[in-house]
């Protein structure tokens, strides 16, 4: 597969934070790609590096204390890490847009929603004020806000949580980006509102055809909307697969354990929940060995010594593990 088929190609990205407590190894050599029009889900628990990876891609890491230590972020074959800040500003919002978990803190509370929408449009396109206003009303209506034209003058606090997330989506998609990065956009919402937002994003994607990176900790949401899935743990990608392959047979013990720890609303209770012993590791130590080894039920001597690389273990199915989870034996 040649590189230029991909919209985004991240190669060996490493991000660290230099804090008074020590160096935080947040992202430790992450490589993945996103094809045009693809929905990639990134799953992992808090502190696994999923958000820091995305912030690094957009160069939104506060420096200091953070620093992108190495790696390449090829977007349309151009390394974003080498762009000037001026050119980067053109990429953000125009070509790559991002929506966040909490729409209340990512919208400006003292500017009207219309002002925030037209600002994006006027920064990145050649519209005049009147055109931008008309377009803003269209966008609000497009994301399902009733009486959109009358609500341009309203402020973020006058919208409910679900409606605010719709406004965020309207701002993000205003300039028809090629890639939308959504960082846990439905985590703060109730399930019925979450269903509305997921439905909306799926619908907008069909219309616009942009690629999506959807960050979440909810495997249920992943199952419903992703084409491909990346599982992260302690700043590493531990598994990467097509969504059906992943749920049919995960190859990394962490992914397997996560799925088994999850109760299901569509099944009768069979037994006690399986648990993962211990807690995620501190990122303050330079990783040695497999980061999941202390919690892994398949652990071997080799796992403590050497960190496995992410390798293709089945067609298009990558896992970073020395062990064959079906047999429990070390791979040859």
């Amino acid at each position, binding site marked *: 597969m040649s590189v230029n088929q991909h919209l985004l190609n991240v190669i060996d990205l490493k991000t660290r934070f230099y804090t008074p407590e020590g160096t935080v190894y947040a992202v430790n050599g992450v490589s993945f790609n996103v094809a045009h029009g693809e929905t990639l889900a990134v799953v992992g*628990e*808090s502190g696994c590096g999923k958000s820091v990876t995305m912030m690094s891609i957009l160069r939104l890491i506060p420096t200091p204390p953070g620093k992108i230590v190495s790696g390449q972020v090829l977007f349309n074959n151009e390394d974003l890490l080498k762009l000037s800040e001026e050119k980067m500003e053109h990429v953000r919002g125009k070509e790559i847009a991002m929506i966040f978990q909490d729409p209340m803190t990512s919208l400006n509370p003292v500017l009207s929603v219309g002002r925030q929408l037209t600002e994006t449009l006027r920064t990145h396109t050649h519209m005049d004020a009147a055109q931008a206003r008309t377009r803003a009303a269209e966008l609000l209506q497009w994301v399902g806000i009733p009486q959109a034209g009358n609500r341009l003058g309203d402020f973020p606090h006058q919208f*409910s949580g*679900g*409606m605010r997330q719709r406004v965020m989506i309207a701002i993000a998609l205003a300039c028809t980006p090629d890639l939308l990065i959504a960082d846990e956009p439905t985590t703060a919402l*109730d*399930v*019925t*509102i*979450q*269903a*509305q937002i997921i*439905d909306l994003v799926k619908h907008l994607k069909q219309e616009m055809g942009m690629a999506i990176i959807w960050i979440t*900790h*909810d*495997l*249920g*949401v*992943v*199952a*419903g909307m*992703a084409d491909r899935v990346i599982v992260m743990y302690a700043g590493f990608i531990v598994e990467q697969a097509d*969504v*059906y392959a992943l*749920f049919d047979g995960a190859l990394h013990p962490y992914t397997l*354990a*996560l*799925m088994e*720890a*999850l*109760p*299901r*609303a*569509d099944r*009768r*209770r069979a037994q*006690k*929940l*399986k*648990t*993962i012993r211990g*807690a*995620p590791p501190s990122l303050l130590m330079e990783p040695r060995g497999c980061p999941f080894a202390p919690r892994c039920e398949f652990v071997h001597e080799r796992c403590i010594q050497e960190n496995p690389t992410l390798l293709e273990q089945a067609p298009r199915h990558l896992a970073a593990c020395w062990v064959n989870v079906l047999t429990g034996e070390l791979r040859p």
Partner: protein
Amino acid sequence: MTDAPLVRVEHLSKHFPVTRGILIQRVTGAVRAVDDLSFTIQKGETLGMVGESGCGKTTAGRTLLGLYPATTGKVTIDGHCVQQAKGKEMLTIRRKAQMIFQDPYASLNPRWTVGSIISEPLRVHHLLATAAERAARVQELLEMVGLNARHINRFPHEFSGGQRQRIGIARAIATQPAFIVCDEPISALDVSIQAQVVNLLEELQDRLGLTYLFIAHDLSMVRHICDRVAVMYLGVMAELATRDDLYENPLHPYTQALLSAVPIPDPTRDRARQRVILTGDVPSPINPPSGCRFHPRCPIAKPHCAQSVPAWREVAASHWVACHEVK
């Protein structure tokens, strides 16, 4: 389960006044957070209470324990009426009924050691006379919830979220209660930690014969841990049934929509499902809709749904529902 229920709730309501003005406050309305709830909880049972934010489930849990005075209605816990109890009797209720809170960061005093946090209820209720006895009991409790007994002098910030929730659980079981209200005890925790805490709650229930009111919005976890489940919407109960009955045969249109919105971690099943996507948001509880409170969003609403409040009735054995359209 033929014994008298441990907890009996009769027509419980809790309204909060809405006021205007800064110096001279006038009451201009009421947030009807909980309206006319009636249900019972048997000894040893886990009753789940689910619903979206603002549906009144937390208020219901707190009013049940008398942390908020009830506007009307009556709660009886193990034969003691929460609304009429005073002095010694109130202390007895406080000892028998405890609470576990959602946020393990906000519910522990950061300036107290774990030892003083867990022994506080023992001191308040004069359960153990000497400090040495209390320390021994705290160590026993720490071990019961899976923490290291030697960490008795540590402070909350030295523990992870899951461990802090264990401290909150140890504090709740310190007085040997019969009934615990668990208010979203796992929603602040990561998936791999949630299962640990849920299993701990179940172990303690078996070992100590506890009765739980488990308030949550995670419908998958509720199906796992609860015996019966109550669905709330805008301060009223929409449906109450045994666990598998509710999930396999939901009768109220709101329960149906809620269950169909829960993501299922199986791509084939999740994508093949028929979804009921509700339009709009939950209305304000200050002026809740007339008649059935769900009618403005209900996919099967008829004109009479806006006129009269549906009765809370038992349509099948142990299956209660409040809907005009359910036969």
